[in-house]
């Protein structure tokens, strides 16, 4: 959508920008909460060990770490009973593939239980923030309101069936409720896991060229942004270069993809506008082609993308909320670990997890300011949400970028006489999961696994920790089915 708007040089009404920004912020908050608690935490937190915890000691620990009211003894006890029932029923279900009792699991039963308790509470909060996406987007995750030129959300404060003050205040209530959880639970838990696994600040650094998109546009053209973005080469934040606008050639001219090691026909480095995608599967050949993923480069080099890249870029740009929450996180880790932990610790497996929570807290501040901006703009009498596009004849090229939960996402389009001639999406997990490029430089996953410890090759938990720290978007592509866990299901014809 932004790629088409960029190709047509279309300006987007302010309300539409703010509504999109609210949806992006809420969606990312949802993703970050779910990633930490439900997708990533169980690499670090042993659910089976949590069952042995003393509930009283767990509640005391929770109350010491945070003013969060949900850490009472009764609440912790109830969560523990619920887990016992669930695990005791023999249906480990989502926990069936966990590496319980693995020697790399280092947390005490009480810390495990506190995390498991918040895991259950997070199920409730992820749902609340998703409502913001659903209210504005009609449906989630497959939102329906986006259109080239704006959003399909009519605003009429006198109507019950459009976006009105009642809906807007409901959205604000949801943002604040979840923001409280992010600040007092997610940020604290992440810091605690990082402090107790401080040795993991030395693991998983990988590629330290960082790329992120500026996002949350605050004008109709996309020249000012609430959240800065740009490029940091070689892990050196003093060399940060911002991406300044939707049309900044610094981004538009420096992205390429290589297919030397990918299952596509040929061996080239091309700009996304000039690419084609012709599959050529060769089986796994470690010195030739071995991946379906292409290998993107920025200025000819691989780059790591994601919340860590985003936080480092925003930090380098002097973004105040990022500096505030990064300091909160690092101070909490330092006090729990009993040793000073600085921003350099973020270039690591555990750093990627910490940065995701810092970003989530930054998004809470951003959601509040976007909500205010939307309400103030409507109060001025502006209810426009859409600028109709017109498609001229001839060729137009465009690109659009977005700082998605997993990192910079860019779409590239070539339009010819009103029809799509070429379209390429260079997505966050491609940046991180890409194979070696045409110079044989490895991508972030590969580089981050060099030197990664593995205690037990049969149960490679430590590998999962590093790969999961990127929040890989591969859930729909890879499923491992263990025949030994097959269950007998009674299916009858009717």
């Amino acid at each position, binding site marked *: 959508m932004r790629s088409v708007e960029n190709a047509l040089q279309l300006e987007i009404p302010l309300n539409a920008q703010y509504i999109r920004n609210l949806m992006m912020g809420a969606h990312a908050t949802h993703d970050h909460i*779910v990633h930490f608690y*439900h997708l990533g935490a169980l690499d670090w937190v042993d659910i089976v060990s949590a069952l042995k915890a003393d509930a009283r000691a767990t509640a005391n620990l929770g109350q010491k770490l945070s003013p969060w009211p949900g850490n009472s003894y009764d609440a912790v006890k109830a969560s523990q009973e*619920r*887990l016992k029932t*669930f695990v005791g029923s023999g*249906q480990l*279900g*989502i926990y*069936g593939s966990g590496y319980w009792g693995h020697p790399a699991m280092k947390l005490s039963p009480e810390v495990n239980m506190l995390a498991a308790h918040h895991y*259950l509470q997070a*199920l*409730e909060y*992820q*749902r609340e923030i*998703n*409502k913001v996406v659903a209210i504005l987007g009609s449906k*989630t*995750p*497959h939102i329906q309101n986006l259109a080239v030129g704006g959003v399909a959300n009519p605003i009429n404060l006198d109507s019950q069936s459009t976006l009105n003050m009642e809906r807007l205040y409901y959205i604000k209530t949801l943002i604040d409720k979840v923001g409280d959880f992010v600040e007092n639970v997610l940020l604290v838990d992440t810091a605690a896991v990082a402090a107790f696994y401080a040795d993991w600040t030395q693991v998983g650094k990988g590629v330290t060229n960082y790329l992120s998109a500026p996002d949350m546009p605050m004008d109709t053209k996309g020249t000012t942004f609430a959240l800065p973005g740009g490029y940091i080469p070689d892990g050196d934040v003093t060399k940060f270069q911002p991406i300044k606008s939707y049309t900044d050639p610094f981004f538009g001219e420096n992205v390429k993809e290589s297919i030397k090691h990918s299952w596509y026909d040929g061996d080239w480095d091309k700009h996304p506008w000039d690419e084609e995608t012709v599959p050529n599967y060769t089986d796994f050949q470690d010195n030739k082609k071995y991946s379906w993923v292409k290998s993107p480069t920025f200025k000819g080099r691989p780059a790591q993308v994601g919340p860590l890249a985003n936080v480092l870029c925003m930090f380098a740009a002097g973004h105040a909320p990022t500096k505030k929450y990064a300091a909160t996180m690092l101070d909490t880790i330092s006090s729990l670990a009993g040793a000073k932990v600085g921003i350099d610790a973020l270039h690591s497996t555990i750093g990627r997890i910490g940065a995701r929570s810092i970003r989530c807290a930054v998004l809470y501040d951003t959601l509040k300011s976007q909500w205010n901006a939307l309400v103030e703009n409507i109060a001025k009498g502006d209810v426009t949400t859409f600028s109709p596009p017109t498609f001229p004849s001839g060729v137009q090229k465009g690109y659009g970028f977005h700082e998605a939960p997993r990192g910079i996402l860019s779409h590239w389009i070539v339009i010819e006489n009103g029809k799509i001639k070429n379209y390429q999406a260079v997505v966050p997990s491609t940046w991180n999961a890409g194979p070696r490029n045409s110079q044989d430089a490895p991508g972030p996953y590969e580089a981050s696994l060099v030197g990664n410890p593995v205690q037990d090759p049969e149960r490679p938990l430590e590998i999962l920790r590093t790969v999961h720290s990127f929040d890989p978007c591969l*859930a*729909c592509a890879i*499923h491992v*089915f263990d025949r030994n*866990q*097959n*269950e*007998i*299901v*009674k*299916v*009858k*014809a*009717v």
Partner: protein
Amino acid sequence: MSMSPLSSAGELPNVLVMGVGSILMTDEGIGIRAVEELQRRYLFPDNVELLDGGTSGIELLSYISGRDYLIIVDAIKSGNQPGTVLKVEGEDVPAQFRTRISPHQLGISDLLAAATLTDELPKRLVLFGIEPKNIVLGIGLSREVKSGLDHLLEVVVEDLRGIGCKVEKLEQHEISQKQSIWGKV
């Protein structure tokens, strides 16, 4: 499975009929197509809600929360003849989703596990579906699955009537001729 009452005396059970699957994966879209056809061909009372759950997972938690009875409609791979209409009940429903591999099923497995953890699992759970022939990228159902569709709708409706829901079949002239944008299922 215990057959405790679904709702308090004098109250109608709160029922959700949820189709899941991907309409971009041929026969995997049967759950969605079935819910669309139910909506088109029948009239449902207020206590029965129909939902296109698509390929979502845990996002559906708020939709299944608070229900007395949940009917899931989906493609069911079980080794039967393609087109066979099938039923899975109670505890076997989560197990069925745990044993399968396809883009959305991990999502439903997680959804049911999450609902168990949050004490929001509906009182009774049933899965209806059809044995698929093809699950490949593409639009439209196979001939075999299409031929089982009418029977699938009938058994779902019979099941709803069995718990006291007044479902009415529309007369031919009352049925909207509006079709899915993909054409006739």
